[in-house]
């Protein structure tokens, strides 16, 4: 009887440990931010954001520093609101670009910091932007162009 209870207790402990490990793993992989304070909101306008969505990452030098919060339309331009880790100063001439992973992967926003001494304030706007490249359009122009030869 004692040996059985001992055995069951051991199994119970292993199961709890296993679940704890799974919980830790999902938190790490899911990038869930507990106490995600110190987030810095900025916005930017693009001619096209083709494929970018809420939750898409915002990166500097290939490292994620934030995420897209929402995307809207204003005067036929895409307005992207994003949150960036506070403590990263964005100079006024920072350039925000919509880029693609590889050639046909996920869209993300790349931030290229500038030389200005003035920083974009919280809630401010990144004025210099590069919209999504219209790859199909460029291919079309190439085909179109050569067909005319």
């Amino acid at each position, binding site marked *: 009887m004692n040996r059985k209870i001992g055995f069951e207790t051991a199994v119970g402990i292993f199961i709890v440990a296993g679940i704890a490990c799974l919980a830790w793993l999902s938190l790490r992989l899911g990038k869930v931010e507990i106490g995600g304070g110190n987030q810095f909101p900025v916005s930017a306008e693009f001619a096209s954001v083709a494929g970018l969505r809420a939750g898409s990452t915002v990166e500097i030098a290939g490292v994620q520093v934030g995420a897209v919060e929402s995307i809207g339309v204003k005067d036929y331009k895409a307005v992207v609101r994003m949150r960036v880790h506070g403590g990263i100063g964005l100079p006024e001439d920072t350039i925000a670009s919509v880029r693609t992973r590889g050639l046909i992967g996920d869209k993300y926003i790349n931030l290229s910091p*500038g*030389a200005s001494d003035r920083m974009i304030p919280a809630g401010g706007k990144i004025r210099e932007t*590069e919209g999504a*490249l219209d790859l199909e359009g460029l291919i079309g122009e190439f085909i179109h162009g050569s067909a005319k030869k």
Partner: protein
Amino acid sequence: MAAVPSRAGEPTDQVRGTIDRVLEILKKKELQAKEKRAERRALLRGEISKAFDFDEMAKRSLGPPWRQRTQEERKEYVTLFRQVLENSYLGKIEAYQGEKIRYMKDSVEEGRIATVETFIVTGKGQEIPVNYRMVKERTDWRVYDVVIEEISLVNNYRSQFGGILQRSSFEDLLARLREMVKASDSGSGSRKEGR
């Protein structure tokens, strides 16, 4: 402050004026000959200097490393950058073959930053979107970035320079710029003259 779209305001007039004067210079029969190239280029440079703020373009193209550089280093860098850009532009301008420019609209933010949207229409009917980013300095609007097909000139140089500075040094970047100037100076002799 919201952007105020307008059909065509001051910034567009500035761009249009410069482009018209540049085309005039290109069309002058007395400047078409090979011997006249230096004179023609001097005139073209004059027009371009008025419209482009090379200091600002150079600063933005270097990005964050600009802040650590001394006055002398900045001066040398700006001079070289300007030459690289001028040679690049002059080459392209001299290759003009009758393309038409379509002026779409301009928008002004906070009274001092403007975007002039244009299209270059090639002989084959291709429409290439070219946007000029301009800043108002006293009474003139001057270009600090050119965005072609959503690719910024400043960003293009910024990533290249950033890469070079990452791998080697500022001196190396200056050497690289000097090479570029030399290359474009010697290569431009092969450009087609006249039409």
